[in-house]
């Protein structure tokens, strides 16, 4: 395990989060082929939003994982964030006992299945808000902590004072923020059908479905049972700096231009590109404004320049 970073010398790793949206099988396969040759270090695979989305089966994900591993990537299988049915528990159990790859637990059900048996990564929706909670879970096998999306750099710095050295931290650094989960499917609702008869309509929205305010401001993005921010989180400026930062920066896949996003983050962490320049280029790759408010302990939708004080 990497020693925690403290300053500009140690390289920050880049991870690719699980695909949040419902993409067809071929698109997913093509996507991961294109990822093999990028400088991404860690790849999270699997369906974390809706158990009805079955473009790929577990064996397909494992096959993709094996290819990525041969290409030098660390591979993690991620799991559902919100579980309601016994069948979903069964599916998560299968992933937890896959034996090939590490697991990201996004719900306490998965933690219960893994605790004391297999090391695991604690996903952002596990509600680990303080070091005491983290240490308890470390004692059960947690090896990496993914920050809840609403926590700031100050909280991260406080955690790092108390975290065991071998435990890694990861921050959601690019993409639409996952900010709520529901039993209700909002894409189905927008199509005036119930979740049980959804017709898999979310496949029509490879970057989610925009929800605007009544004065036509992009506000939220509907992604089935998940609600996301419309604004795209961007923490590229936090890759290099004088204060301690996260060990791993997570980039969330989008339907187009993900390899370019990876490239820009990679160039910035190497010092080949300034963060401001990277931001200008990143802006061109998405259709919405960028935000980074949570990092600065403010409203998530806000945007601050790197030189703003907290």
């Amino acid at each position, binding site marked *: 395990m990497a020693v925690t970073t403290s300053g500009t010398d140690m390289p920050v790793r880049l991870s690719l989060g699980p695909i949040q949206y419902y993409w067809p099988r071929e698109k997913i396969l093509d996507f991961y082929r294109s990822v093999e040759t990028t400088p991404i270090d860690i790849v999270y695979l699997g369906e974390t939003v809706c158990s009805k989305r079955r473009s790929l089966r577990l064996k397909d994900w494992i096959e993709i994982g094996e290819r990525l591993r041969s290409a030098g990537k660390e591979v993690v299988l991620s799991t559902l*964030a*919100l*579980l*309601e*049915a*016994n069948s979903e*528990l069964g599916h998560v159990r299968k992933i937890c006992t896959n034996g090939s790859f590490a697991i990201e637990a996004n*719900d*306490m*059900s998965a*933690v*219960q299945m893994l*605790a004391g048996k297999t090391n695991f990564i604690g996903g952002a*929706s596990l*509600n*680990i*808000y*303080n*070091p*005491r*909670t983290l240490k*308890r*879970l470390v004692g059960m096998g947690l090896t990496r902590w993914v920050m*809840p999306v*609403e*926590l700031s750099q100050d*909280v991260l710095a*406080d955690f790092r004072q*108390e975290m065991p050295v071998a435990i890694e931290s990861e921050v959601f650094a690019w993409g639409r*923020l996952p*900010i*709520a*989960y*529901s*039993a*209700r*499917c*909002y894409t189905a*609702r*927008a199509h005036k059908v*119930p*979740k*049980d008869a959804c017709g898999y309509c979310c496949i029509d929205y490879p970057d989610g*479905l925009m*929800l*605007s*305010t*009544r004065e036509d*401001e992009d*506000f*939220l993005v*509907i992604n089935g049972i998940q*609600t996301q921010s419309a604004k795209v989180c961007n923490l590229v400026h936090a890759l290099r700096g004088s204060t301690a930062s996260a060990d791993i920066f997570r980039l969330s896949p989008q339907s187009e231009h993900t390899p370019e996003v990876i490239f820009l983050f990679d160039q910035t962490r190497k010092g080949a590109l300034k963060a401001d320049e990277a931001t200008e280029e990143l802006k061109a790759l998405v259709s919405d404004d960028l935000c980074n*408010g*949570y990092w600065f*302990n*403010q*409203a*998530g*939708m806000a945007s601050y320049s790197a030189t703003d004080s907290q």
Partner: protein
Amino acid sequence: MSIERARLRPQNESGISPELCPRAMELVCPAGNLPSLKAAVDNGADAVYIGFRDETNARHFAGLNFNDKQIEQCLAYARGHGTKVYVAINTYPQPGNFAKWARAVDQAAEYGVDALILADIGVMEYTAEKWPELRLHLSVQASATTHEAVRFYAEQFGVQRAVIPRVLSVKQVEALVNNSPIPIEVFGFGSLCVMVEGRCYLSSYVTGQGPNTFGACSPASFVRWSETSSNLETRLNGVLIDRVNKDENAGYPTICKGRFIVNGETSYAIEEPTSLNTLPILPDLLRIGVAAIKIEGRQRSPAYVAKVTGVMRAAIDACIRDPENFIPDQAWLSQLKSLSEGAQTTLGAYQREWQ
């Protein structure tokens, strides 16, 4: 206490858990202030739940909740009527302020309250170690929706009851109860969270303050009502949540209850103003073996608490008396409707079609 209520209520004065009385379904009512607590107790609550006057609980609003002296008054009044008192310390401390939550736990324990309602693992660990005799309930804020998640808390911290998020259908509640190592408490009436509780960041995305870190959703300090020539607009930190004609009622701008545009159409894209009402499925909840029915509403008035408690008490008693033939009284339904958001009610996720 009427003779009828004495017969139907579990013998809890001696501390025997209602879970030992298989036909009982405890009625747990909210109290944001002393008059509300009295209203709940007087109208037949088996237990009331309260919070301290700070961000250690998920209803951190100005003018609400209790300081130390008031907790003593709560206990005295409740105990005098055989009603239990639970204290919610159900938000998530961040590094540096854990001591505040620890202090809240210690204070509640020293007062000898009947149970703490907790969400954070660190706080549960602290409580289980320092106050091993203190009864722990799992808050809905812990976001535990399966028997495996519930089992985690039962095994790790000796949690003795779990309040579950409003995301499960009746059948899924049944499966959970059947497989859970501990009794389950469900919401029975009140304002509806449509996102799974404990993991919703809509409020902090818009305002920087949310339920987990601040104990508030869509906080009042960020609310603005402004008039245009023909409309009234409600905003939260500048974001337009809804717009109504000047002669219409403008609801509070809770983000998920706003009206938004999706695919060119304006609607309540997430949820309409409505309240959860489980009267129609009380016999199912009883049959399934749900241990307690929780009423949402610590921010509500004493009159609201009195009316809702009274209706739910009568309904639960009637249901226990004759579950096969239970039909909710029209008077109860109108009463609850009149107290509901948008003057309408829903079964929410309990009903698959809502999902």
